[in-house]
């Protein structure tokens, strides 16, 4: 087995036992990137020298007998919407094609403190808007399970890199499912933490009230390790919660006795592939056999979630993306004769179709005539969805659903049908609306051999219990730990 095929915790243990070195691990990754990246195309930018120099520091310190953090020497990649000082951060947009941030995002800083080598920046749907990575202004990433299929999105590059073994772990961001859906499509673990658990500072905003950064990993243990590294309040992001630090690996016990698992009927509806529903139900039965208690629950306002999401997220994005005006940085149309024309041309040429579609939607729902009927209504729906969850969590400890209505679809299959693409978010957006933690963990394959993702949602800051449930799913379905 090559080094790139291991999980982070395996490599950590190997480093501690001096069975390998950080430089060897990094070189193995860089070699893997060279071999397979032309097919997968997960990376927009690679940073081999940054990775090598960090790996050398790790080896030096290890040689001196220093005790290092868990992720020291474990190479990773970042979604290209996380600011990296001196390394271009494009958001897969022509608008930021040559933008080099002068500061680091908090999550990258925390991974640097872990001494985790940065391999590069990963492809995504432009400004994190999309579910297939086909909205990247540069190229589409392939699903390593089937190169003709999409890896999901918007963190498609992040999921594909983990699945392809071109990163041991990655970070993605999730506004409506952008970590969980690609994780499900690529057969990896993807965790969206509770809103406010992980700092958003330096992560280019899409919809500020829902964006959250989280790990994509090969197994649940790695997800807990990466969460340990990135979670915690940040003085630069006042929406982060002040809470005591937890060791999330402490929750990982193969024991679900007495755990109450809620199954919401609204998530097993028509439109969700029966094969997926069956696979989820089978897994739930396995959990029940292991001692969990299964509870039928209802989240009655689920059917309004997607519509409300597609009002709130575009509204916030229309404001967040207004700063890309060509005045200070980013793409600027050079031919415009005056400022207003420059705005129009720069934004018209710099943004892709989906981004423009959402800016238009968002601008409309915030306009004086539409505000009450759309934006305010959507906020009310958001409150109802949050209340649904609060009531549900009186009856259960975690909620299990499919992550996606379908498995990975073909490239080009839905590219001209935005509404069909929006439906991919059907089962994931409610957790963002309510700010709750949710994880997608592989639980098997469909007949075409494509991975199926099982979603576990928990109450606010209930990362511990969803990780534990996911860990059990991993044990029962034997899906963890592999780069296949």
């Amino acid at each position: 087995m090559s080094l790139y095929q291991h999980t982070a915790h395996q490599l950590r243990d190997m480093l501690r036992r001096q069975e390998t070195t950080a430089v060897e691990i990094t070189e193995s990754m860089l070699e893997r990137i060279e071999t397979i990246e032309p097919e997968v195309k997960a990376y927009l930018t690679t940073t081999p020298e940054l990775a090598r120099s960090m790996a050398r520091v790790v080896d030096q310190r290890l040689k001196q007998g220093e005790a290092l953090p868990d992720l020291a020497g474990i190479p990773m990649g970042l979604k290209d919407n996380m600011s990296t000082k001196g390394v271009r951060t494009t958001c897969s947009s022509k608008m930021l094609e040559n933008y080099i941030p002068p500061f680091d995002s908090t999550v990258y800083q925390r991974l640097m403190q872990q001494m985790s080598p940065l391999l590069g920046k990963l492809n995504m749907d432009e400004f994190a808007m999309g579910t297939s990575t086909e909205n990247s202004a540069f190229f589409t990433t392939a699903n390593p399970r089937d190169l003709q299929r999409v890896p999901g999105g918007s963190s498609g590059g992040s999921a594909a890199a983990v699945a392809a073994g071109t990163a041991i772990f990655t970070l993605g961001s999730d506004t409506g499912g952008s970590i969980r859906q690609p994780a499900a499509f690529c057969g990896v673990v993807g965790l969206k933490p509770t809103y406010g658990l992980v700092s958003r500072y330096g992560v280019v905003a899409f919809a500020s009230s829902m964006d959250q950064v989280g790990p994509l990993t090969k197994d649940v243990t790695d997800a807990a390790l990466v969460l340990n590294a990135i979670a915690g309040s940040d003085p630069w992001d006042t929406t982060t919660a002040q809470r005591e630090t937890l060791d999330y690996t402490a929750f990982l016990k193969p024991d679900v006795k007495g755990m109450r698992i809620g199954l919401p009927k609204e998530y097993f509806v028509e439109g969700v592939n029966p094969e997926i529903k069956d696979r989820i139900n089978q897994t739930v039965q396995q959990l029940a056999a292991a001692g969990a208690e299964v509870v039928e629950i209802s989240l009655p306002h689920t059917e309004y979630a997607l519509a409300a999401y597609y009002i709130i997220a575009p509204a916030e994005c229309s404001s967040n993306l207004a700063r890309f005006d060509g005045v200070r940085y980013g793409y600027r149309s050079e031919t415009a004769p005056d400022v207003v024309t420059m705005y129009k041309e720069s934004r018209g040429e710099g943004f892709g179709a989906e981004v423009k579609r959402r800016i238009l939607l968002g601008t409309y729902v915030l306009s004086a005539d539409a505000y009450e009927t759309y934006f305010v209504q959507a906020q009310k729906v958001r409150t109802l969805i949050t209340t649904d969850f609060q009531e549900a969590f009186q009856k259960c400890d975690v909620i299990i659903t499919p992550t996606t209505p379908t498995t990975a679809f073909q490239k080009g299959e839905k590219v001209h049908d935005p509404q069909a693409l929006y439906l991919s978010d059907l089962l994931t957006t409610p957790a963002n609306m309510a700010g709750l933690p949710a994880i997608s963990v592989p639980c098997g394959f469909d007949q075409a051999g494509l991975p199926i993702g099982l979603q576990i949602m928990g109450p606010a800051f209930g990362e511990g219990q969803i990780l534990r449930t996911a860990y059990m799913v991993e044990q029962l379905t034997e899906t963890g730990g592999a780069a296949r």
Partner: protein
Amino acid sequence: MSAKYETVIGLEVHAELRTKSKLFCSCSTKFGSEPNTQVCPICLGLPGTLPVLNKQAVEYAVEAGLALNCTIQKYSKFDRKNYFYPDLPKAFQNSQFDLPVALNGKVRIHVNGEDKELGITRIHLEEEAGKSVHSGDNILGSDYSSEDYNRGGIPLIEIVSEPDMRSPEEAYAYLVALKSILEYTEVSDCKMEEGSLRCDANVSLRPVGAEKFGTKVELKNLNSFRAVQKALEYEVQRQAQLLDAGETIIQETRHWDENTGKTHSMRSKEEAEDYRYFPEPDLGPLVIEQGWIDQIAARIPELPESKRRRFISEYGLPEYDADLISSSRKMAEFFEATVALFPDAKMVSNWLMGEFSRLLNVSGKELDQAAVTPELLAKLLQMLAKGTISGTVAKSVFEEVFATGKDPEAIVQEKGLAQISDTAELERIVQAIIAANPGSVTDFRNGKDKALGFLVGQVMKETKGRANPQLVNELLRKYLA
């Protein structure tokens, strides 16, 4: 202005807060630095940056609210005001829309001997934009514009008044009162010339006795309190003429041109922008607990209105003096400190409003930049009151004290400026002057009283102003009799 219409005015005042750092980042707020030297990723709105609210700015806003008799809102929030402009790096301004930090205040003004209470609708916190510097004289005549973001993100409060003012004069008095309160509490520098205090005015006319407001016009580019008054006076006339001619007023924004003394239309209501306000998701609600409000309230100094009343009752100052002296906190404090040492309050106020103010004006100094202290002024006034020096000498000694901070007694001593009240010495001088001016002597004796003045002047000249003028008069009359 015709008596047919009643003028209705409301003002929106923007005051930059005196914080050391900006509203959402730690950049300096210092005025006048090189362009774009006080900026960071946050106030430049670089992608991924987030705001961190400046606690001091909130305290200043609360303090201003309390000083203006507002109710502080325990729960308020920030919103985004969205619009495109090159000086606005995020393309939205963080402001407070429907839940501002303070509501329902009032300010007392005194115009033409009448007292009036004016309402304040609200005070909200927001951030400044940067500054566009056009290559030409104005935006239209420019090939290009440069942006300076030093100012971008400086905290300010917007104070919105009720439409309670009934004349441009009242608007002026309101601004003076407001500025005075903001200066007393030290929440703002209130320097209009540096733009740290700005004002927009809304004005409409309605037939006398009508209840319904007329169509209002908003005036912009008002760069001084006098400009506010003048622009309003012009606008009141313009609207009255239109109404007299049977025309209707258009709801619009008009630009005041200081050079022509006229307003001209900038944009109509239809062209007004839709700012698409919505709650700022990057900042939680602003929750202000009573304990915090109490702490802030405890440090508010005695305010001008209370000082004014006390100066009248406690020191017997005329209203005019009390108004003037109390409008500046520094002046009021100087006044009280001087009176504590030299109890003739009216004399102190005369000197503060007279010589002291004149010298401040001439030198362009702020009160606390002058070398003179209440102790020095009190000493000088004591010498004057005792007759040790004459009024003329007092003025020239004060000039020196003002500039150098030297003890006035020492100056008088060194320069031998003490008044000559020694009869024997003055008799000698008076006799010499009489001997030297026989013409004037004859004139006086022929009944020309003016000649006496000339002779007094000669004596004063001879003594370099040190002669006791009353004594000189007596002696001259005695020897000419």
